[in-house]
């Protein structure tokens, strides 16, 4: 799967995992900030993204502080998955 395809897949997954029901895939810009101004996610969402990474991609994040960089944007998240994915 290339990065763009993974990003599309992630859009669907994060909408479901984070209960972003009022947001459509089209509205999510892969380079926008996930936290802060962009999608406005919070600390609980960050933890849910950690759960998503482990469950769907087998990547375990031990230190939640690392999440800041990994989850900067959907693109950075996709790139991290591609670098670290185990099955």
């Amino acid at each position: 799967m290339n990065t763009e395809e993974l990003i599309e897949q992630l859009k669907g997954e994060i909408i479901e995992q984070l209960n972003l029901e009022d947001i459509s895939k089209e509205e999510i810009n892969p380079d926008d900030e996930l936290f802060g101004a962009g999608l406005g996610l919070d600390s609980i969402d960050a933890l849910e993204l950690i759960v998503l990474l482990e469950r769907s991609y087998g990547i375990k994040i031990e230190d939640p502080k690392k999440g800041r960089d990994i989850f900067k944007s959907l693109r950075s998240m996709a790139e991290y998955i591609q670098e670290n994915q185990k099955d």
Partner: protein
Amino acid sequence: MNKKMINSYVGITKDAVFKDGNKVFSFNESELLNENLRALYKSEDLKYSKFYKMDHLSRLAYLSSELLFKDLELSSDTFNEMCIFLTNSTASLDTDSAHQKSISSNENYQPSPSVFVYTLTNIMMGEIAIRYKIKGENYCLIFNKFDAEFMHEYSDMLFEFYGVNHLLIGWVDVLKNDYKSFLAYVSKDMNAKWDFNSDNLIKSYKNELR
């Protein structure tokens, strides 16, 4: 002794939504809680995306507060000092069950942080507080039945002795598809309609105070 008055109240039952004793919205009889709450959210044309992250209890509490406060034009100072006092019988069991299910199988052990944070009854008060920036005192107690006498007695004490001028009081209860909410705004506004006493509290709880 200052008089305290019930300014307005809202009730949500399995059948309908009431404001000040008048039916303002009817639920589809066959629909489940989840669908009914979404229908109400859409019908009120609300734009509060946090709604979708909330559990059933918080959604019910939040929607009740939107309906209660929408026409009241209360100032931010009023909200800032407001006291919230809620009770129920099922605590957070509706969501507790979801969390319990997520840890019931060794093979599929998946506790979810966004579910777990709702396994405390007072979170529903936190959601209302966040929405309206309510920073005063807050109380959450559990009783098997709505106890108007206790609630009136303690609230009255808050008004008389502990500097409360504005109170959001009520009962918000959810367990699977059984649910009921009742929220009332009480203040010292002499122009308000009803005296705040335990009889009127019971009547408004039953959506019968007119």
